[in-house]
Structure formats: structure tokens, C-alpha cells
């Protein structure tokens, strides 16, 4: 599902609500088909505006940390890095990455640790055309395996999806 709408219409807030980072003032959010013992946040990947990377750690160390912390690692870090086009930069400190490469490293976390829900806030920001196409491909693969993607975006996501328009006309 694509969340669209003008700035300040609540796209990011809705994603943070689903992730459990904000508490709803009324109502509740349910995830049907998930694991009842785990919260939605524990079953979701959240990709916000910021890339949670440490500049002094290498590309591989950054990904290894999140794979270790989030658990349930699906594939070795190298495979996830290769899938986002960073396979040759594993030993490079993240400080040297461009904005697009940092974004791709953040996306590698989604591939390294399988979770059914992807909450993506402007996932294509900073990505070049090839990166956007690769992102769309990863989203299609995730959807094909029964996953769910909720993405706040101002542009086309490159996949067939429902659209939820928030706020007034953009």
C-alpha cells in the first residue's frame, strides 16, 4: 500500500503508529495473520527518514549488527549486500558512503532479516534510477512471498499497489 499526500498530512506518523513508535490517542491497530505473541513492531521492518548506520563501522559490521540484534537472520550479510549492489564495499567504513549507498545499506537490513511487514518512509530518497528499480524488484519479491509493504511516498513506487491518500489534494 502506498501512502500519499502532501507534506504534514500524517504519512510518517501513520507508519510510526503502525510500528508502535507512537501511541494512538484512540482506536487500535491489528495485524491479522501475524504471530499473536509478538507486537506489530516486532514483526515489521521500519525504514524511516534516517539511516541507522554508524559511520565508524564498516558496511558489513553495520549490517551484521542489525542482523544480530533483530535476529532470525535469513541470509548471510554478504548476500544481502550483493543484492543491493554493495557487495564490493563490505569492508569500507560507512562514513565513506554516499547518501544513496547509505540508503541501500539500510535496505539490505530488510533482506538480511525476514519480517512480514515493511514500513517504508520515502524509501527511494537518495536512490538513483537503478537503485529505485532494484528497490521495486525487492518489494515485488517480498509481496510475492506473502509479505506486506506500507510505504509513504511522493513518487511512484514502481509496483502495482493500493493507494491511501491522506490530507487534502497534493
Amino acid at each position: 500500500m502506498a501512502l500519499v499526500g502532501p507534506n504534514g498530512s500524517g504519512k510518517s506518523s501513520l507508519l510510526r503508529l503502525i510500528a508502535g513508535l507512537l501511541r494512538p490517542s484512540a482506536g487500535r491497530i491489528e495485524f491479522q495473520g501475524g504471530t499473536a505473541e509478538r507486537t506489530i513492531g516486532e514483526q515489521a521492518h521500519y525504514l524511516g527518514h534516517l539511516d541507522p548506520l554508524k559511520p565508524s563501522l564498516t558496511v558489513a559490521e553495520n549490517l551484521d549488527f542489525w542482523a544480530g540484534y533483530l535476529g532470525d537472520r535469513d541470509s548471510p550479510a554478504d548476500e544481502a549486500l550483493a543484492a543491493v549492489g554493495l557487495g564490493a564495499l563490505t569492508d569500507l567504513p560507512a562514513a565513506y558512503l554516499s547518501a544513496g549507498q547509505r540508503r541501500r545499506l539500510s535496505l539490505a537490513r530488510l533482506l538480511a532479516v525476514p519480517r512480514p511487514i515493511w514500513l517504508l518512509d520515502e524509501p527511494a530518497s537518495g536512490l538513483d534510477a537503478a537503485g529505485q528499480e532494484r528497490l521495486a524488484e525487492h518489494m515485488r519479491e517480498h509481496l510475492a512471498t506473502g509479505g506486506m509493504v506500507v510505504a509513504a511516498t511522493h513518487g511512484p513506487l514502481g509496483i502495482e499497489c493500493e493507494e491511501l491518500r491522506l490530507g487534502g489534494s497534493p
Partner: protein
Amino acid sequence: MTALSALLVRDMRLAIRVGGGALMGVLFFLIVVTLVPFAVGPDLVQLRRIGPAILWLGALLACLLTLDRLLAADHEDGSLDLILMGGTPLELSLLAKAVAHWITTGLPLVIATPLLGLLLDLEPLAIGAVALTLLAGTPALTCIGLIGAALSVALRRGGLLLPVLILPLTVPVLIFGVAASNAAVAGPLSFGAPFMILCALTLGSLVLGPFAAAAALRHGLE
């Protein structure tokens, strides 16, 4: 690798690579201990008498140096959101961060204490007592600092607020740490009583610190 060990290893690695951990703390400790004789004069008897207090004050201030980055760095790059969302209880994650902070900041101060004690002409017994009390007391400083770091993380320039928040809370640790060190050398109290109270303060802060910090984080970041 479990979530907690991953967090522990990452934070220790960051502290070593960024340089804000062991080396910075020990250097600051050294500067404080070196400056005091310039202020109070080169009277060795006096330095020997106030030496344990100087070492404890130096260690306390050195611990403060890196506490403001304990959670702020993770907040600024969005890591804290993922830590909050993760399946690992936040209290345990914060405890792991506190352990990493103590290993990279508190423990090097304990190791440096014998050398700095020599600079203050402390006797071997006094040096041993100060090192032992710092070993028992510095985890309390980290855990109390964790609460301050959590309270100030969502505030702009919260790092400035941190010492104001936590220094008053560290006074009991300072009092019993210095009292135990002095008691080991000069009496009249026995070393055991203040040292046991110091250990109790540390155990209490180890239990309360992560819970209080987690509550402050959950409240502050919403």
C-alpha cells in the same frame, strides 16, 4: 550472536573506534589528578590525605564525559527507533549499553588508578582501597548516568542538562566510595561498612537504572 551480545560488541567497538571511550576518560582522569596538586600545593601529607577523594572526583567527572552520547548518538541516527521496536526488552538493551559503557569507560579508570595514586603519593593500601571502591562504585555511576541520558535524549542540547540531573544522584556513591577508601587507611570506621553500602548502591542502581531509563525513553520519545 544474541541481540544483547550484538549490542554490547557494537557499542564497545564504537567506543574504541570513535575514541570517546577508554582513552578519553583516562586522559581526563590524568589531567584532573595532575591539576589538583597545582591548586592545593605540593604538600605530600595533604595530598596523601585527600588523594582518595581526588581520585574519586576525577573518576566521576571522567565517567560524565561520555554519558551524554550513550543514547543521543542512537537517537540522532534513528537506531533508537529500531531498538525500541525490537523484540528484546528495552530494559535489557539499555543494561547491555550500560555494561559496554562501563567496560570502555569505568574499567579503564579502575586500571589507571594505581598509577595515578602514585602521583598523589598514596600508600599501596590506599591505592588498593581506592581501586577496589572504584571497581565496586563505577557501575553505579554508569547506571545513574543511564537514567540521565534517557531523560535528556529527546531534548535539544540535553547533554548540558545531563550533569545537572545526575551529579546530585551520584553524591551517595561518592560519599561511601571515599569513606570506604579513607577507612581502609586511617579509620576509625571499618572498611567493610561503607564498602557494603557502596556495593548496595551499585546493586540498586543496576536494577533500577535500566527500568527508570526505559520508562523515561518510552515517555520522552513519543
